[in-house]
C-alpha cells in the first residue's frame, strides 16, 4: 500500500476545497433525508467516480435500517456489518462484496449507514481517496445537522405562527359568537373553533338540563357521541348559564404521525372558548333585559300620559264654593284619581279613588272607572245602584289582586246637601264650624273585590257655610321620611283642623309643603292626591 506524502495531501486538499464547500451547500439544501442521500450519491460520483453508493438510515439504536438511496438490493444483506456505536467508523474491508463500510452516529441519536461498492473504473480506493471519503462523510454529518436545524427552525416558525393564529382566532371567536345572537349557531361556531385551534380530530358539545342531555352538536356531524366520550385522549370542560350546562369534549389531538394527548395550552384554549360562550349568552340575556325594560318604560310612559289626561287639568267653578285639587304622581305610574264633574241637574260629583298597585294595569282600571262614571252619573239612578254597577264592571275588568277604593260626594251647591258613598276608601274629613272633625266612611267594600250584589250604603249630610271637606288618598298619611316614619293620619287630621286659609288652593299647597317637609330627602313612593272644598 502506497502512503501519501504530506505535501501531496496538502496539494490535493487545496484543489478539493471548493469541491467540499460546494458539496456541503448542496447537501445542506436538501429538504428530506432521501434528497440528502441522493445528493450525497451525486457528490461521490462527481468527486471520486464512485457510482455504487448505498445510504441507509436507522432512526435509533433499536430501529431497523431503512434504505435512503440504493441501486442494488444485495447490500441489504450486509446491513448487519454496520457497526452501531457512538463513534464514527469507516472500514475498507477486503474480500467482501463491498469496498467501504461506514456508520455515522448523528446528532439526534440516529445513524447513517453507508456501503460503497467499486469505483466506476474498478480501481482500488487510493489512500488520498480514502481521506477524501472520510472528509465527505464528515460533510454529510454536518449537512445532516444543518438539515435537522433547518427542520427545527421551520417547525418553530410554524408553531409560533400557529400560536398567533390561536390567539387571533380566540379573540375573533368571542366577537363572532356575540354577533350571531342565535344560541344554536353560537354553540356550533364555538365547537368548530375549539376543535380546529386544538387540532382535535372530533368534538362534541352537549346541552344538559339537570341530568338530561337536551341537545347535541357533533363535529363532524356523523361522529358518534359515545365514541367521542370514550376515547383515551380527550379534554372536557363545562360552563353553566341559567340552569343549562354546556359540556364540551374534544377527542384525539392530531399530529402528522397520528394522535396524542392534549397539552395544557389546549385546555386553556378550550376553557377560554367555553367562557366566551357564557359571556355571549350573558350579554344576550342582558341585552334582551335592557330591551324589555325599555319597552316597559315606554308602556309606562304611555300609561302615565293616559292617566294624566283623565285627571282634570282644571276643576269647574261651583257657585258659593271654592274647590282645589292636586295629583302628584310618584316615579311609577300610580292608580290615584280625582275629579269634579258637573251633572246635568246642576249638582257636582266630587270623586277620589285609588287603585291597588301601580303600573299599566292600575292606569287601565282608572280609565275604566272614569269611563263608567261618565256613563252612569247622569242617569237617573241612585248612587248606591251606580256603585253596584261600577263595582261589577271593575270586578270583571280587573285581575284578582286589583281593586279600587272609591269615594263620591254629589253636592247640591244650593243647599250644601251631600249624597255620599265611600267604597273602602280612607275616611273623608269634614271640618265643622264648631271645629269638630267628622270622618265619613259609610258605604261598602272597595270596587272589584267581590261581585255578590252586596249593597253600598250611602250617607247624606249637609256642608254648611265656612265648613271644609278634604278628600285624599293614602299617599298623604303614609308618606314616609328617611326613618320610615309615616306622615300619619293624626298629623294630617291636625293639619286639616288647624290650617283654614281662605282659599282652597292655599290649603292644598300648604299640606303638600308639610308632607314634603316630612319626607325631605326621600323618594316619593306613592301618588299624593287630594281634593279640598270650602263652602263660602
Amino acid at each position, binding site marked *: 500500500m502506497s502512503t501519501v506524502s504530506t505535501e501531496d495531501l496538502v496539494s490535493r486538499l487545496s484543489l478539493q476545497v471548493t469541491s467540499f464547500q460546494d458539496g456541503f451547500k448542496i447537501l445542506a439544501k436538501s429538504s428530506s433525508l432521501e434528497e440528502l442521500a441522493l445528493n450525497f450519491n451525486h457528490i461521490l460520483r462527481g468527486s471520486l467516480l464512485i457510482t455504487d453508493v448505498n445510504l441507509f438510515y436507522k432512526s435509533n439504536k433499536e430501529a431497523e435500517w431503512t434504505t435512503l438511496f440504493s441501486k442494488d438490493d444485495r447490500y441489504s444483506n450486509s446491513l448487519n456489518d454496520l457497526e452501531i456505536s457512538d463513534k464514527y467508523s469507516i472500514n475498507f474491508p477486503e474480500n467482501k462484496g463491498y469496498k467501504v463500510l461506514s456508520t455515522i452516529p448523528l446528532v439526534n441519536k440516529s445513524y447513517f449507514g453507508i456501503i460503497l461498492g467499486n469505483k466506476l473504473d474498478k480501481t482500488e480506493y487510493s489512500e488520498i481517496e480514502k481521506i477524501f471519503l472520510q472528509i465527505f462523510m464528515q460533510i454529510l454529518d454536518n449537512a445532516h445537522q444543518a438539515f435537522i436545524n433547518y427542520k427545527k427552525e421551520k417547525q418553530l416558525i410554524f408553531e409560533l405562527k400557529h400560536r398567533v393564529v390561536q390567539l387571533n382566532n380566540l379573540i375573533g371567536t368571542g366577537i363572532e359568537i356575540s354577533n350571531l345572537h342565535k344560541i344554536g349557531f353560537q354553540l356550533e361556531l364555538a365547537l368548530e373553533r375549539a376543535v*380546529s385551534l386544538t387540532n382535535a380530530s372530533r368534538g362534541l358539545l352537549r346541552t344538559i338540563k339537570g341530568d338530561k342531555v337536551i341537545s347535541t352538536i357533533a363535529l363532524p356531524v356523523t361522529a358518534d357521541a359515545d365514541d367521542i366520550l370514550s376515547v383515551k385522549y380527550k379534554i372536557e370542560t363545562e360552563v353553566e348559564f341559567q340552569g343549562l350546562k354546556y359540556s364540551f369534549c374534544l377527542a384525539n389531538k392530531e399530529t*402528522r404521525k397520528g394522535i396524542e394527548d392534549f397539552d395544557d395550552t389546549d385546555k386553556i384554549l378550550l376553557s377560554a372558548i367555553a367562557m366566551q360562550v357564557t359571556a355571549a349568552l350573558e350579554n344576550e340575556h342582558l341585552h334582551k333585559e335592557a330591551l324589555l325594560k325599555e319597552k316597559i318604560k315606554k308602556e309606562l310612559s304611555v300609561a302615565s300620559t293616559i292617566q294624566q289626561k283623565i285627571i282634570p287639568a282644571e276643576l269647574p267653578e261651583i257657585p258659593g264654593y271654592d274647590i282645589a285639587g292636586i295629583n302628584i304622581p310618584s316615579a311609577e305610574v300610580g292608580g290615584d284619581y280625582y275629579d269634579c264633574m258637573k251633572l246635568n241637574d246642576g249638582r257636582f260629583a266630587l270623586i277620589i279613588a285609588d287603585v291597588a298597585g301601580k303600573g299599566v294595569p292600575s292606569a287601565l282600571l282608572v280609565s275604566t272607572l272614569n269611563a263608567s262614571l261618565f256613563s252612569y252619573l247622569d242617569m237617573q239612578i241612585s248612587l248606591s245602584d251606580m256603585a253596584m254597577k261600577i263595582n261589577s264592571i271593575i270586578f270583571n275588568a280587573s285581575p284578582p289582586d286589583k281593586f279600587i277604593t272609591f269615594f263620591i260626594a254629589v253636592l247640591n251647591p244650593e243647599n250644601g246637601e251631600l249624597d255620599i258613598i265611600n267604597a273602602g276608601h280612607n275616611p273623608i274629613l269634614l271640618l265643622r264650624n264648631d271645629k269638630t272633625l267628622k270622618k265619613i266612611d259609610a258605604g261598602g267594600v272597595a270596587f272589584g273585590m267581590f261581585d255578590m250584589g252586596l249593597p253600598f250604603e250611602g250617607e247624606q249630610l249637609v256642608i254648611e257655610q265656612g265648613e271644609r271637606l278634604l278628600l285624599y288618598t293614602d299617599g298623604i298619611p303614609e308618606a314616609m321620611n328617611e326613618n320610615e316614619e309615616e306622615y300619619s293620619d293624626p298629623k294630617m287630621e291636625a293639619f286639616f283642623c288647624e290650617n283654614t286659609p281662605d282659599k282652597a288652593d292655599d290649603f292644598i299647597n300648604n299640606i303638600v309643603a308639610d308632607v314634603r317637609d316630612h319626607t325631605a330627602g326621600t323618594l316619593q313612593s306613592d301618588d299624593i292626591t287630594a281634593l279640598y272644598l270650602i263652602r263660602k
Partner: protein
Amino acid sequence: MVTDFKLSSENKTNCLVINTHGYINNIGGQKIVDEFNKHKDGGIKNYILNLEESKIVNSIGISFLIEMIEKLNETNGKLVFTNLDPTIEKTFTIMGLFQFAEKANNVDEALKLF
C-alpha cells in the same frame, strides 16, 4: 355544519381543480396531498384548491398544504386557493401560505391567473 371530509377533482384546460368538503385536518390534508401527488406525477403543474365547502382547518391540515406548496415551488408549479372562509383566509395569511400561493374569489377568477 361540518361533514366528513370528501374530495373531488376536475381537469381544466391547464390545471387541476380540487374541491374539498369538510374539515381539513390530518385525514383531509393527506387526501389533498395524495390527490395532488397523483396528478403531479402525471405532469400537471397548476392547481386550484376550492375550499368553498370547507369551513374549518387545523394546523396539521395546513402543514399538508405547505408541503404541497413546497413541492410545487420545486417544479415551478402554482397553487391558487379559492372561496376562502374569512377565518381560514386570515389563518392562511398568518401562516404565510400566500407568500408562495395565490388566492382568488372563485374558480373562474383563479383560472385567469394561469
